[in-house]
């Protein structure tokens, strides 16, 4: 009996304009960890072997093993490793619930400024924000001033791609005026 074939949310090749690239990130395990009341500390202790701790609001914590990003009220997403067993938390698989898009390059902030109602001056490395990508839900993680990882609902992947591409093409056309 053949195994079922996994498919990416989009399966599109990266797209580059104005030296800025939009790419679909490879599948990663994502586990939602929502500590039960008063348990955030014990979660941090359990994450210690991964060199991670439960992140404060609007932050992610990165280690050689993986990343854990604040993803909302009393909730964080663990990227990469499996969640430690027996956490005093609700643990839910979210790996397939999101499309992950990487936006990289000198115009990345300008692209976000067209779709995300966030003050990007606060977008320093290590930040993770819950906000909106135009009309879609968004978790955005800042790896670098020019490197952003965007998560939105997997079923909306095409719209997200399309809107990011539109924003970038408008910026590219503006840059063409100066050139």
């Amino acid at each position: 009996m053949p195994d079922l074939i996994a498919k990416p949310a989009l399966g599109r090749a990266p797209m580059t304009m104005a030296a800025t690239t939009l790419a679909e990130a490879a599948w990663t395990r994502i586990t939602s960890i929502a500590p039960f009341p008063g348990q955030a500390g014990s979660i941090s202790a359990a994450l210690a072997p991964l060199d991670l701790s439960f992140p404060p609001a609007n932050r992610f914590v990165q280690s050689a093993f993986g990343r854990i990003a604040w993803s909302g009220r009393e909730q964080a997403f663990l990227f990469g490793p499996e969640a430690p067993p027996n956490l005093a938390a609700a643990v839910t698989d979210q790996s397939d619930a999101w499309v992950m898009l990487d936006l990289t390059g000198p115009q990345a902030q300008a692209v976000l400024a067209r779709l995300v109602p966030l003050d990007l001056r606060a977008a320093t490395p290590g930040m993770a924000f819950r906000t909106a990508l135009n009309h879609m839900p968004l978790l955005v993680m800042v790896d670098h001033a020019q490197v952003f990882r965007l998560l939105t609902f997997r079923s909306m992947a095409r719209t997200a791609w399309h809107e990011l591409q539109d924003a970038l093409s408008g910026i590219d056309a503006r840059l063409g005026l100066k050139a």
Partner: protein
Amino acid sequence: MRLNCPHCGPRDRREFYYYGSADYLNRPAADAALQAWDDYLHNRDNPAGVTQDLWYHEQGCTAWLKVKRNTVTHEILSVEPVAGGAA
């Protein structure tokens, strides 16, 4: 219009869902008289001035927030989570 979400910081109004008066926090007991439920669900002080109402940071941390604000000037006086606890 911007609300200073206690978890996420100042955010544009479009990230939030508005429910209504903070009266919704004071749910009558199950056996309360019909009048108590009428007051809870329908009747409002509806002040032209400072009021307290409930907002939901739907495109954000998903916290329900109690907001003190002025309905005439739109000045926002305070924003606090309805449920305590960590972010």
